[in-house]
């Protein structure tokens, strides 16, 4: 392209610095202070909030978040890879339509979907009612349990795993598969030794796209956990709601560390962001 056009990107870089990088410094600052929201009138430096970090509730929230996010990522990986691989191998003329099927649920409002899921997890809900009217009686009551939250997380973020893996699989040259067969590998061996290693880019990206929102979201744990499950996102939300910007900022910094880790992995594995969509 033309060198002149570099100008077009410069304001954006500035924009990113102001809106993405600057806040990090503000949050760092806030973590080390006490202030009333953002009014620095009566503020002073303190390490108080670090003490809060050590509190049981915070630590539990942290470990829970990581635990839930990891479980969600693993389950999504297994299910997601399975689906992506099957679509990849299928003989559908129009894979685009098939992929749209997996993206469509994302167009419904997340909160409504989660609310609906939450209702399903109650003993009495609309489906059981309909089934009852048809003469079948079943009921599940898992709302408020960790299982409910994990199920909700997986159901919600599974598409984020399917798409990157599918993209990575599509990029594998078919002649590589033929070469593997030619050299004496069975279909099973071919998968583990050739296809899977070459799809790792998608696996990494997909896992990150599932792990991060699962770890830091607060809507799903709140609705499906019925207040019993507190993840770090919930704690942050509470802090800011209660005007405790300092603690909220500190916790946010911690999440940022995870995100930096993720950015680092993505930069090593998928330099031009091909699978991020």
């Amino acid at each position, binding site marked *: 392209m033309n060198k002149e056009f570099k100008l077009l990107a410069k304001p954006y870089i500035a924009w990113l610095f102001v809106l993405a990088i600057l806040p990090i410094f503000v949050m760092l600052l806030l973590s080390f202070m006490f202030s009333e929201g953002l009014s620095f009138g009566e503020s002073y430096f303190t390490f108080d909030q670090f003490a809060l970090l050590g509190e049981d509730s915070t630590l539990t929230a942290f470990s829970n978040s990581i635990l839930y996010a990891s479980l969600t990522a693993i389950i999504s990986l297994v299910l997601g890879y399975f689906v992506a691989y099957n679509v990849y191998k299928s003989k559908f003329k129009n894979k685009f339509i098939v992929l749209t099927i997996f993206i469509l649920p994302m167009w419904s409002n997340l909160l409504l979907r989660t609310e609906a899921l939450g209702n399903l997890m109650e003993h009495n809900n609309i489906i059981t009612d309909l089934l009852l009217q048809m003469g079948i009686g079943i009921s599940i009551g898992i709302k408020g349990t960790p299982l409910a939250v994990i199920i909700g997380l997986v159901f919600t973020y599974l598409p984020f795993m399917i798409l990157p893996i599918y993209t990575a699989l599509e990029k594998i040259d078919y002649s590589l598969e033929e070469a593997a*067969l*030619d050299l*004496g*590998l069975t279909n099973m061996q071919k998968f583990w030794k050739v296809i899977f290693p070459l799809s790792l880019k998608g696996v990494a990206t997909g896992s990150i796209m599932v792990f991060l929102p699962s770890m830091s979201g607060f809507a799903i744990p709140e609705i499906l956990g019925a207040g019993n499950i507190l993840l770090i996102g919930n704690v942050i939300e509470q802090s800011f709601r209660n005007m405790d910007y300092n603690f909220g900022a500190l916790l946010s910094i911690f999440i940022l560390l995870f995100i930096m880790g993720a950015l680092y992995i993505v930069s090593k594995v998928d330099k031009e962001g091909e699978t991020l969509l």
Partner: protein
Amino acid sequence: MQIVEKKVIIELSHITKQFDDEIVVNDLNLKIYENEFITLLGPSGCGKTTTLRMIGGFEKANSGKIIINGKIINDLPPYARPINTVFQRYALFPHLNVYENVAFGLKNRNDIYLKNFFQIDPTFEKKIYVDIIKRKIDEAVVEALKLVKLTGFEQRKITQISGGQAQRVALARAIVNRPQILLLDEPLAALDLKLRQNMQYELKEMQKKLGITFIFVTHDQEEAMTMSDRIVVMKDGIIQQMGTPKHIYNEPVNRYVANFIGESNIIPGVYLRKDLVSFMGVNFDCTGYTFGNNEPVDVVIRPEDFDVVELSEAKLIGKVTSSIFKGVHNELTLDAEGVELFVNTYENYEVGEPIGLKVDPYEIHLMKVQTDE
């Protein structure tokens, strides 16, 4: 004199392959012998690559039988066939380095196969033979890389090697498995001229040294002529002619083959009687053909077979309409009473100059006139 019986290693019997509505390979019958370098030659779409892929197991024939070592292998997947392939764009595994690519086939075989492969004493214990196998695989890989002149490249990444080097890695990866048959799908297509010519020579040498059957696919007739023991010329899924390069060059069986292989002049003529053919209003002695008296024939004369003689001794006279210097010779186009003739000469002739031509009876080749070309 004893004739050496050549053993048939693959036989294709009435093989037909259809994609949607198009018949790509049409009732093909072919016997391939042990230890020969055979080339499938033809333009894109003639079915040569499809045939190769059917032999390799990447396509399934709609009908017909492929027989290897006396058994029908149509339904056998590629991994079970005693065949290895060098793919057109090499298909090297990007996540492995050169060594790992070459070792890939052997490393993924099971123990029983490997014990057999390296002829290890079956009574050895697992601890012992596992070590031996490791060592033997390493030796085999190093040997294969030496054969393709890539010693020292073991640790290189696939992204760090050139096209020519990648081609050799692909070759090494295939032959390290000691297949009975090696399939090569236009492997030299992506190389530049000098490199391609070198590789042609090296491939031929390698085939002789290894003693395995090479089945080569190309659209480049010069390549086919250089390397092959036998050439199979194909068009529209049907074999047009099969034979040694010399035979096909000298005795093309129809216009298509005559035009495809080398340059030629094809002139309509009439076979008057034994050893006498008439074309362009002149009678010529010919030899070695049997046609019906006064049967129309196509006369094939290679540009280099015309002899330029004094106008007084000439049987044909033509005026030079163009002359192109080709280094080794000049390519002349002549107009001889309305017929365009191509003649190759060592001397230079001016455009507009009239030239006298003669041709030896041995160099007049006759073909049956085909009605459906």
